[in-house]
């Protein structure tokens, strides 16, 4: 298919702009930060000129006065607060990092080390193994609690749920590398959890049938 594309002839290439020139043109502009002012006055003038008797109709009056009110509102505190909030969102979005240029060089990262420093002590296991020990211990505690507190549901259920959450958190943070990966991944993971929790809570809150 690529062969079908008509290559520009040498003549055309001479006339065509070079990439550098194009970059100059394309980057030489920035969108205006503010909306133009004085539109209301300009409109009113134009309308008066266009009408036969120099008087504005009711509709035209309405439009110009609405426009004028909008222009005046630009300088009020609520509008400016809203504007700075939107600018905040904008710069937050703009700070999201891009794609890596080359495959990540994972060597020399702390999680590849054979030892782990925890609470000031050094253990002869990697962080992954330490987390595995923690997961095993938590599971045993969970089953023990379930058996021991079988009749005390008011304590048992919140306790077991928080242990399960802790186990999941350990896996997500250490095994799925959220501790040193981009925060965008964390958001991607947590937003649906939040939405799912909302829907679960809603369905629990309404009586069936």
């Amino acid at each position, binding site marked *: 298919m690529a062969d079908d594309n008509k290559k520009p002839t040498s003549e055309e290439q001479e006339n065509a702009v070079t990439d550098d020139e194009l970059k100059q043109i*394309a*980057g030489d502009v*920035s969108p205006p930060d503010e909306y133009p002012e004085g539109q209301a006055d300009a409109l009113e003038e134009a309308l008066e000129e266009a009408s036969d008797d120099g008087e504005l109709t009711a509709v035209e009056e309405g439009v110009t006065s609405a426009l004028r009110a909008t222009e005046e509102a630009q300088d009020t505190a609520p509008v400016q607060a809203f504007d700075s909030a939107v600018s905040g969102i904008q710069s937050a979005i703009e700070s*999201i*990092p*891009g*794609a*890596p*240029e080359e*495959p*990540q*060089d*994972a*060597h020399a*990262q702390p*999680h*590849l080390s054979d030892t782990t420093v925890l609470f000031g002590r050094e253990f002869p296991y*990697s962080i*992954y*193994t330490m*987390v*595995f020990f923690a*997961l*095993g211990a938590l*599971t045993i505690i*969970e*089953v023990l609690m*379930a*058996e021991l507190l079988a009749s005390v549901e008011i304590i*048992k*259920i919140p306790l*077991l*749920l928080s*242990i*399960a959450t802790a*186990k*999941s958190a350990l*896996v*997500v943070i*250490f*095994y*799925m*590398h959220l501790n040193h*990966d*981009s*925060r*965008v*991944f964390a958001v*991607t*993971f947590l*937003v*649906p959890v939040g*939405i*799912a*929790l909302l*829907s*679960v809570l809603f*369905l*629990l809150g309404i009586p*069936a049938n």
Partner: protein
Amino acid sequence: MSQVAVEQHHHEMSAEEKARSIDNQKFAMWLFIASETVIFSTMIVAYIVFRIQEPEIVKGVHEALGLSGILLVTFNSFLLLTSSWAMVMGLREIQRGNRAGMIRWFWLVAGLGVAFLAIQYYEYVQMASKGITLYHDPSSEFAGFGMRFYAPTAFHGAHVFAGVLWCLLVMRRASKGVYDKNSVGVEIFGLYWHYVDIVWVLLFTLIYLI
């Protein structure tokens, strides 16, 4: 503004920036996980509503399973947790450049996945013999539990099965040296496998312990 962006692009990325950058495949996997969360939540909520409305039936099921039943499932959970650990250890090996070491760990991952499925199958047979059925059986004392139990656990089991197949594929590709330079392919399988593990952690607590 564009000038700034261009400069940023060309300067050497620091280690910090590299770590925080967003890889296409990893991002896609996280998005997939996001939608999986929502699917699982619909099945889990069906179970939780039942647990709240019919606590006696669930208690009856736990008693019918007995301590031995609970211990068997606990052992099964351990298998999955261990496979998750084997998974990250394997990832660590390939990131250090040790292809053979990674494949050894991944045999453990796949083996533990298969063992998990085998035990789950055994457990299903046991439950069916106690009258816990997928279809609604009004005569059973556990009426209504079966469907809300089998739907999420079997759906999870299907994920484990798919994971085992994927694991074998990753091992095959690794033995050809696909991941020597770039281990992202292994990492996204890891994300999936750990996610399946997390779902089991929650299902285990919700269904068997609470």
